[in-house]
């Protein structure tokens, strides 16, 4: 599973973010989603999706070695992370997020829930293993 995006298909509905927060944190709260949507209005009138491409930069910069790769997905070890925030500020795609309730950054776990429930196919799996329901 690797997220790809088609910005021109995004309608800004945020279903992906709600689905993400439910799957990853078990709560209804799009502010706890591991992907973002920039709405560029009124001009030029477009959406830009912000997603993790599992580049591994976060693991490279983590001073505690709290981020490890497994099957192509970088995951944060909550027992090691001290929320220093370096991974968040270093992420080349600004695809790591923080939330005041959480003691570690929010990062894509590759679960594919956003892909399954984006109504528009604007987020998709580059590998084709996960598709819209």
């Amino acid at each position: 599973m690797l997220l790809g995006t088609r910005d021109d298909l995004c309608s800004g509905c945020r279903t992906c973010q709600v689905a993400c927060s439910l799957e990853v944190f078990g709560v209804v709260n799009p502010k706890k989603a591991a992907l973002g949507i920039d709405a560029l209005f009124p001009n030029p009138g477009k959406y830009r999706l912000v997603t993790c491409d599992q580049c591994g930069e976060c693991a490279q910069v983590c001073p505690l070695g709290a981020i490890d790769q497994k099957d192509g997905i970088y995951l944060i070890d909550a027992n090691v992370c001290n929320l220093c925030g370096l991974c968040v500020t270093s992420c080349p795609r600004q695809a790591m997020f923080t939330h005041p309730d959480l003691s570690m950054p929010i990062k894509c776990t590759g679960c594919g829930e956003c892909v399954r429930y984006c109504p528009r196919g604007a987020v998709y799996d580059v590998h084709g293993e996960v598709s819209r329901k």
Partner: protein
Amino acid sequence: MKAKLPGYAGQILYVDLTTQKTETRPLPPELAREYLGGRGFVARLLWDEVPAGTDPLGPENRVVIAAGPLSGLFIPGAGKLHLGTKSPATGGYGDANVGGHLAPELKYAGYDAVVIRGVSEHPCVVVIDDGAVRFLDGSQWWGQGAIETETRLKAKLGHDFQIMTIGPAGEKLVKFACISHDFGRQAGRTGVGTVFGSKQLKAIAIRGSRDVPVADVKGVQEHGRKMYEVCFSKPGFEEWTPYGTAGVTDWVNEVGAFPTRNFQTSYFPEHERINGQRIREKILVTDKGCFGCPIPCGKYSRVKVQRGEAFVEGPEYETIALIGGNCALATIEEVGYANYVADELGLDTISAGNVAAFAIECYEKGLLTEEQVGRKLAWGCLDSVVFLLEAMAAREGIGDLLAEGVKTAASVIKGGSEKFAIHVKGLEWSGYEARYAPAMMLSYMTADVGAHHNRSWAITYDVAVGRETLEGKAEKVIELQHIRPLFDALGLCRLQWVEIGFELEHYAAIFPLVTGWDYSWTDLLAISERIWNLTRSFSAREIEGYGRDFDYPPARFYEEPIPDGPAQGRFIPKEQLEELLDRYYHLRGWDRRGLPTRAKLEKMGLQFVLDALGEKVS
């Protein structure tokens, strides 16, 4: 920690603009259980908070803003916010709803509802930031357009704030000023923007980060998944979405129900030049959806006309009908440009389109002169329409009278113009000419806020069962008047159900998973009926002589046969309107004057209404 009221943020915010103070109170559980949220909260809180006889533009009027228990959740269309007030347009109960992202954001900020009272000494902006509320001096934005204001507020506060704002029309107390959000979505009707203006409230900005508690998280996730999957499987998911609400334009013309030249007729020969296909082919920039929506009807566009270029969301169907056909603008670019002008000024395009068309017909008939207006007016003339919109919003010249709406304007212009002032209760008519659609006609006559279609969109029923017959029409209208406003109480958009056939049973199934209450769909509809009786009672409390006399359409619709098109020759004679009303009141448990009876109010759990209405109730 277990939430006290799953599905709800659990708090109501009270904002006093006079003192610039706020108070947060817990959401009363009985309010939630008896009125659900959204429209239900609006109706009950207005009843309790607005003193009888209040001036709609005075400090004692309130604006109540409410999300619903299903807003902001993993549910298709869970993004509707409801706003209500004592309407400056009608003097009675008024409300409007808006999609976009406001309702979810309000809940994430920790509130189910906001009650606004008082009048600020100077223009102000209220900022609700995760439970912290502050007031900004709004002078720097006063006078600016709605889109411009939203752009600047986001630049100042942060792009993650959701904004609702008025334009210059609201500041000038135009009776049909709207509230704008997300660069093209509006809470359009009944003058909610006018009341913002009267309170010197330019905008409200909201940002929140909190979870919304639900009773059964796994259940909500699983059922929410199923709801989206069912939507994805509907043929309309692929077929309806590309054109959105504008896709209905051709059908409305085919059945002879398209407002044309101030409802003189019901078929616009140029309709294929202003329909959904034209939007898609010629002006679309992106599809734009509200929160959680699988079928985004927003068509964000860019138009270019001789006057200039503009970005505009839409035009959606109602604007195509009232600014397009009703003013006879015959290209999608012209309709889009006039739409942009109205949006920036903060005018409801439904009422403003009616008012512009009314003025053009008055001019055509010699009831308004070039000298009075300040220029020539003509059908199909973009310059005429833009001139009128700008004059209304600024209250300049003839615009000062037009800004009062068609009912008041006709009472001053006279000369028979009352017959073609197209409104009910003082609210201008939306996009379905109903002279050949008795159920739709009755829907407009009896909608609680005035001539609006969203309480009961019954024209498809007229077409399905026969358009001449009156039989079963009152029954259908009442059924729809309970189902459709229930969406407004739950905080949901109804278009998934209306447009792609998403079944109602799915909402019934997820409600208990969200709230933990074992309410059936029948229980929810009973609450919707309670709300309907309460809004009717509110108007009866506020307006002398309210009742049957307020439930008639303009004389054009019962005296003038439609002159041409598919519905040529049709109209509904007055005696048939009486028959429809008699049947409707009887089925509702109201008396012949159109007021709820004592027995009905008691059955609805509205005993407190009896005390206020006193001898008005039979």
